């Protein structure tokens, strides 16, 4: 304890010293070092961002010059049945797969937190899908696994064959509009690694003494979870929720590859971003695609704001 107190005193002294009034030249040095990043920001992010804002008020087919048409693209957004369909697909995906993914991540994090032998090995193995999940190779593999002749259907047939009681139907898991979106949700849940690692770090922060006190008072494991673990973990849950919701809204690669770039079968995997891409690069409606992009910005912004607002009622802050 004494050491820590001494350390924090020194740290405090060091930070105060650094806050000495800036001398001339400091700002310029910072500016120079920031310049490469700043140029990148302007050319690669802000420039195109503003350009797309302008294009969203135009009719632009990539070949001719953009024609200013006012709010027409935005009014069209509300009359487009495929846009409504893509919103339905995307919202379903976000509301179902994100909570599921976080639940799986938290569950596994808690198992690993019990001090399993070879923890770092398991952590790496479980993290792996997070790195691979959005890759083209995995999406292609997924297509194979869930095809009509795929591994899943073969496993189901084998299972149906060895016992007569439970008979499961085989389906074209990616080619049947009833199941295609569900298959993509499973793919998303499978990439639970990155929220899991964050949960694991969060679990490590909860002081052991709370559990000791609870055990002495005779609290069950379940009670310990609802009264200690989850409340203490809510800031981390919140953080993961915000990140994963934003990520899920931007899902593109998996749907693009699994549906062969169409959002099919029958628009059942027509994610918002995929429809945006098709409007821009297949239909050459770049103005409309830009308006769609800005609508997505608004939607994600609104969802994040809603998340922050709701967090007041369920996120527990220790300090």
């Amino acid at each position, binding site marked *: 304890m004494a050491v820590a107190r001494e350390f924090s005193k020194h740290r405090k002294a060091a930070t105060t010293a650094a806050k000495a009034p800036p*001398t*001339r*030249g400091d700002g*310029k*040095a910072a*500016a*120079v070092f920031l*310049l490469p990043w700043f140029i990148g920001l302007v050319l690669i992010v802000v420039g195109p961002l503003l350009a797309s804002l302008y294009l969203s008020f135009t009719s632009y*087919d*990539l*070949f*001719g010059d953009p024609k200013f048409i006012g709010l027409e693209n935005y009014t*069209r957004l509300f009359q487009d049945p495929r846009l409504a369909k893509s919103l339905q697909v995307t919202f379903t995906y976000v509301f179902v797969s994100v909570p599921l993914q976080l639940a799986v991540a938290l569950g596994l994090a808690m198992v690993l937190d019990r001090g399993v032998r070879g923890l770092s090995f398991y952590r790496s193995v479980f993290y792996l899908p997070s790195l691979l999940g959005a890759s083209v190779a995995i999406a292609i593999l997924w297509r194979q696994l869930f*095809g*009509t002749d795929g591994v899943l259907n073969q496993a189901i047939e084998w299972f149906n064959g060895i016992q007569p009681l439970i008979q499961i139907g085989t*389906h*074209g898991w*990616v*080619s*049947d*509009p009833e199941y295609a979106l569900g298959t993509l949700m499973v793919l998303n849940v499978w990439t639970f690694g990155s929220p899991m690692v964050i949960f694991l770090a969060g679990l490590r922060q909860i002081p052991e003494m709370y559990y000791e006190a609870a055990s002495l008072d005779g609290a069950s494991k379940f009670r310990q979870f609802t009264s200690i673990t989850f409340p203490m973990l809510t800031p981390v849950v919140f953080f993961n929720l915000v990140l994963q919701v934003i990520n899920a809204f931007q899902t593109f690669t998996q749907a693009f590859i699994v*549906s*062969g*770039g*169409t959002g*099919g*079968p*029958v*628009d059942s995997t027509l994610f918002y971003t995929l429809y945006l891409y*098709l409007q821009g*690069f*297949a*239909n*050459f*409606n*770049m103005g409309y695609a830009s308006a769609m992009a800005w609508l997505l910005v608004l939607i994600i912004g609104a969802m994040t704001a809603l998340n922050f607002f709701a967090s007041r009622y369920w996120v527990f802050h220790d300090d």
Partner: protein
Amino acid sequence: MRNPMRPRGAGRLRRGVTVVAASSAVLLTLAACGQAENLAQDEETAAPAGPVEIRVAWWGAEGRHEQTQAALKVCEADLGNVTTSAEFTSQGYDDRLATQFAAGDAPDLIQVTSGHVTSYGQRGGLVDIATVKEDIDTSAISPGVLNQDSVDGKNYAVPITVNASGVMLNVTLMEQYGLERPDDENWTWDDLFEYASGVYEASDGAIWGLQQPSEDIRLLGIWARQLGHSDGLFSETGVGVDPEVISSFLEYGSDLQDSEGSAPASVSIEHQGGGVEQTMIGTSKALMAVRPINEITALAAATGSEFELLQLPVHEAGETGQTFRSMSWAITSDSEHPVEAARVLNCLQSNLEVADILQAERGLPANQEVVEHIRANLSPEQQMMADFVAIVEENAPEAAPLAPPPGADTAEPMLRRYAEDMLFDRISPAEAAEQFTAELDQSVSDAG
């Protein structure tokens, strides 16, 4: 401790700022010069001094890349004042091209399909071939093939291959299951239906008769022409035929599925949309399929089977309604050297030394002198294609179908979407036809 360092560091940084500022000024000036140079080149196109560089873009597999680059070397030597730079890709060609067009940076000479020709041509992205006709000799290409993709009477591309839809028959599978060869002499759609419906049972459920045809927009166009709509599927404002025509086409596919003539929806749909080797016929799950005839080589390679090409069926004693479709070369409007690009194009499509290198890898050449030149080297499949095309040319109607209007670029995925909905029994063929027509008309009116 930090103070002694400060003055020196700050001085260096101040100099740094000056250097950065100066160099960005230089960069800006250079960029301006670049633009000025471009402008100057524009004025000089009539008489370029040194060799001009022509950027040539295509998609394909490894073999095509090597052959085409070798061919371009021959053209460089032949033309003298031209150098070429190759931009090839095996996938993502359309996206890249669209982006390059948007940036005003499209290559000079591009390999295109019928779909590109209409959608780029209508939007002013391609050079009217008539403006460079002194430099391109199209006399060895038959008029039907040459004008197949014309838009409002203008040709925006020169065909390099000739292709058409035909019925592929897997002869190896047919013999393996002891099936009789279908009688394709003047056969009708009903004949095909009847034959296809018997295959599933005859093969003990191993294969289906015909790959599901209802997602094929080109076949729908031919179907419409066979029913007397010589302009094909499209008019200037969208769909040019009654919904009943489309409905009858979709119903054919739906009935075929119900009679086990083609696979159930989820199997069929899983095999659509990928490359030819992923299709029902490419995976030996269907005995026959309506496909572009040039795929016969790839199909033979993918399945290890022997294939035969059958002519398309017709409606009761009707027209063949056939149309050609090709791969072509086109010159982009962004090109600063359309004349040189035209010369390179001409060399690629007609030079016999080039023909020796390229052979028929892209398909049966459209240039008949080239076909004569390489005839001895044609594989049996390519020979079959040549015979097929000769019959099509003999019987095809004079008039080419109307090009799809702007906004109809998406007709193909759109038809596929409604066809899939129908194959899963979620809507009737009549509903699918009506909704398809309404959406396509809307898309065309939005674009206009």
